[in-house]
């Protein structure tokens, strides 16, 4: 139990500390693919450091909610990162929240971000909040359906149980999981504000969603939000890996397998990040009202995956 708790703490801390690295890696890959000279992989840390040192500039009419939200969002994302199995599948903390609660955590962070965006009362803030909620009202149930497919297979909504079941199944291409994986990719792209749903690199009012919400933030508050965004990307990647390519994860109490699990995880993250950068490079941003269609497709795919599980696999 005590090793479990240590492992849990170590894993969560590691996730928090290393999450910006993944962001740096994705940015680096993207720069290479676009023929630009890439920033160093540690660039996100430098940005965070710079932001933490700056003086916070806050609008005159900002309410306490505006200053509270970044901490809340960061705490939610840290909790989410702590629940998802990354290198070890033995998390004493995970019974506190299963996959449905995980979706709830993401929703909690999102609602706070959207509310904070509306707090100052600028045109961009409410525009961003509205668009974010538009994207999420389809993405969230779709994510839940992906989890449901996995839960039906594992007969459980506990992430460690799901991962253990999926990791120890006979290797084959399961149609339900394939559908779910495609849906999950589409959802993660949308939820992490990436192309084609949103563009993290733009401040053009016609297109921005996430950036519009955090326009008014600066210094430490912005740093916490940026960090939370990196954590979210990491959590989604870890989730995708745990659900769809879980092989190599250390089983419960198997400490000897940890180094190998760590290596496997790093390799999968490197590959996944590169794939994300590649797909972002070859696709264009969708018009805003195409985004619901994109997510509607993801939702349908997720539901289809679940139905196919009943039709073919039970």
């Amino acid at each position: 139990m005590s090793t479990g708790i240590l492992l849990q703490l170590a894993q969560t801390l590691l996730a928090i500390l290393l999450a910006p690295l993944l962001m740096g890696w994705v940015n680096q890959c993207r720069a290479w693919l676009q023929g630009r000279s890439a920033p160093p992989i540690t660039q996100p840390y430098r940005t965070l450091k710079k932001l933490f040192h700056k003086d916070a500039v806050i609008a005159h009419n900002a309410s306490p909610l505006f200053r509270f939200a970044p901490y809340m969002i960061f705490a939610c994302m840290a909790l989410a990162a702590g629940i998802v199995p990354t290198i070890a599948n033995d998390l004493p903390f995970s019974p506190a929240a299963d996959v449905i609660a995980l979706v709830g955590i993401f929703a909690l962070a999102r609602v706070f971000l959207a509310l904070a965006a509306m707090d100052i009362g600028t045109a961009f803030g409410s525009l961003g909040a509205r668009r974010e909620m538009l994207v999420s009202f389809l993405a969230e149930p779709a994510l839940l359906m992906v989890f449901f497919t996995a839960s039906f297979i594992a007969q459980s909504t506990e992430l460690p149980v799901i991962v253990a079941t999926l990791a120890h199944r006979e290797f084959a291409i399961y149609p339900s999981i394939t559908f779910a994986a495609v849906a999950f990719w589409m959802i993660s792209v949308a939820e992490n504000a990436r192309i084609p749903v949103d563009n993290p690199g733009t401040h053009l009012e016609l297109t921005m969603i996430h950036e519009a919400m955090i326009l008014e933030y600066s210094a430490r508050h912005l740093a916490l939000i940026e960090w939370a965004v990196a954590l979210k990307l990491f959590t989604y990647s870890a989730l995708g890996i745990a659900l769809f390519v879980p092989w190599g994860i250390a089983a419960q109490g198997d400490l000897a397998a940890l180094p190998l699990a760590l290596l496997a995880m790093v390799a999968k993250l490197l590959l996944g990040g590169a794939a994300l950068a590649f797909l972002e490079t070859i696709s264009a941003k969708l018009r805003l009202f195409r985004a619901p269609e994109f997510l509607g497709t993801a939702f349908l795919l997720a539901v289809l995956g679940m139905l196919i599980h009943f039709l073919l696999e039970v």
Partner: protein
Amino acid sequence: MTNGFYSYFADPVQWAWAGVMFWLVLGFAALLLQGSQRLLIRLVFPLGALGALFIAGVGVAGLLLPASAVILPIGLPDLPFHLRLDALSAFFMVLLGGAAFGITVYAMGYFRNMAAGPLALLILWYHLFLGGMVTVMLADDAYAFMVAWEVMALSSYFLVTTDHDLPEIRHAGFLYLLIAHVGAVALLLCFGVLQGGHGDYTFDTMRLAELTPFWASAAYLLALFGFGAKAGIVPMHVWLPEAHPAAPSPVSALMSGVMLKTAIYGLLRVTFDLLNVQIGWWGTLALALGLITALYGVIFAAVQSDMKRLLAWSSIENVGVILAGFGLTLIFYTDGKGAMAALTLTAVLYHSINHAFFKGLLFLGTGAVLHATGERRMGKLGGLIRTMPWTAWLTLIGALAIAGLPPLNGFVSEWLLLQAFLLTPNLTQPYLNMVIPVAAASVALAAALAAYVVVKFYGVIFLGQPRDAALQHAHEASWPKRLGMLWLAAGCVLLGLFPAQVIGWLSPVVQLLTKQTLVNDGNWLMLAPVSAERASYAPLIFFAVVGVVLLLTFIWVRRVYHGRVRRSDPWDCGYPEQDARMQDSAEGFGQPIRQIFEVFMKVERETPDPFSRTPHYHGASLDKIWFILYEPIARLTGWLSEQAGRLQHGRIQWYLIYSFATLIFLLVFTTR
């Protein structure tokens, strides 16, 4: 009776009746106290609130003690009032008492400036309404039930039309009265079927009546229609977005939070207790209706621009979720899966009590805003978190709870319901296995849309810049109002943090209806309804971790770096002109939903001329069902009465001929 006076108060059911009588006395005493407005506010409302607390306490006792019954010497000569308090009634009494306490304390502040005459009358209706609802829950024969049901409907009608000098409120009240009575007729017929030809209208006889599947289905459908009209199930929902916002806010809170639950109570009572057989397709029908209601309600909530109307539509959504859970319970129950039915029923009851607390809280919050600003249109509000921090932060708790966000109470019931959906692969009927995942997807979609609605509701009213200069001087809610909201907010938090305990209290109800209890496999901290391997949720740990991480981050950022803050104008991408009118209006925030779901709506839009000096914008998204279903019915009724009107001439000769013809006809008809 042998022990003298004290035997009148031996059982919980008698205490409950004493509580009802106390409210009635209080209500009529208010009429005598018309002279002193201060006394009405300072004495009658607090006593009424204590009565609510007492009723909640009796409910708790009813959950712990065995069922008790009493026959009162009032009513018809051969059918006195039968009252009975079992676990199901007791649970709904806890719901009523718990919510009504906070609402009544709030009412003390809300009605403070009302003139003594109307106030005394309002207090009478208010307490009759409360007493009627409790009696509905206690009634053990159809006569007592219908009398209480009518008391509830009529007193709430008078409460809705408190501001009867406004024509739209009179209109809303009329619509409410009409649909309430259409529903009541269905309930009368339902009880007629249920008594199975015995001619005895006590619930005990009904429990014993052996109905054929046809008649049982007829009774169920009538109950679904009758209670559905009260609960606002699509397509009988049209009165709800009119009547609930029309009432004064505490009454809206009672109607949405508690009165809708009496319909859920009735549905549970008739289906699981009074009917001897349950048939599988009943559940499928209720599930489908519930999902349609939930999605329809939440979509319309997203496009409303009146804050109370938005909440009313959101009540329709929540009733839909409860009905869907009820349908799933029936499906499991008729399939012989008692344990799963127990889980689903727990989710239904849990959501019922959650909705009473968070919707009550939100209606009270809008009441405070309405009093402070005189404005219900969200497009005229904004930025109130700065002038009304108490109201804003307490309402935020309700808003997060209704969005189904952890660790508050809305999430727990949603979680339980989704867990129930995940159990369906074990059903024997394969087609249900296929349909129910889609149903789960719809519930998830409704929950996600509820988050959209909440961000709109809260963001437009409390955040941003005030859309009107007068809002700068909006005053904070008075102390009784704050206390009332605080009570309901505390309920939301506690129901969210201690689900394992709540489920323990619900188990007698679940046992009564499904003959099974839900076993919590976790400990006092953790909710694990089926087995800990399968699913678990520990809100307290969840809350603690978020809190600790939040605090640590805060301390770390402040310690390692600094806490310097500079205030300036908003950045907004460098636009120099900042104007409250540049924010999203309520219509603007709902625009994406309107665009996506336009098929369900009739959109009216009136855009101003670009050169107009006084631009005026009007937009409304109207319910198509009103035009498709109700207007033809209204036209048909109008046409029929016009035809019947031709018989009327006002000449006595003609009326004599009518009487004569009728007499001849009856003679021929009866002597044949």
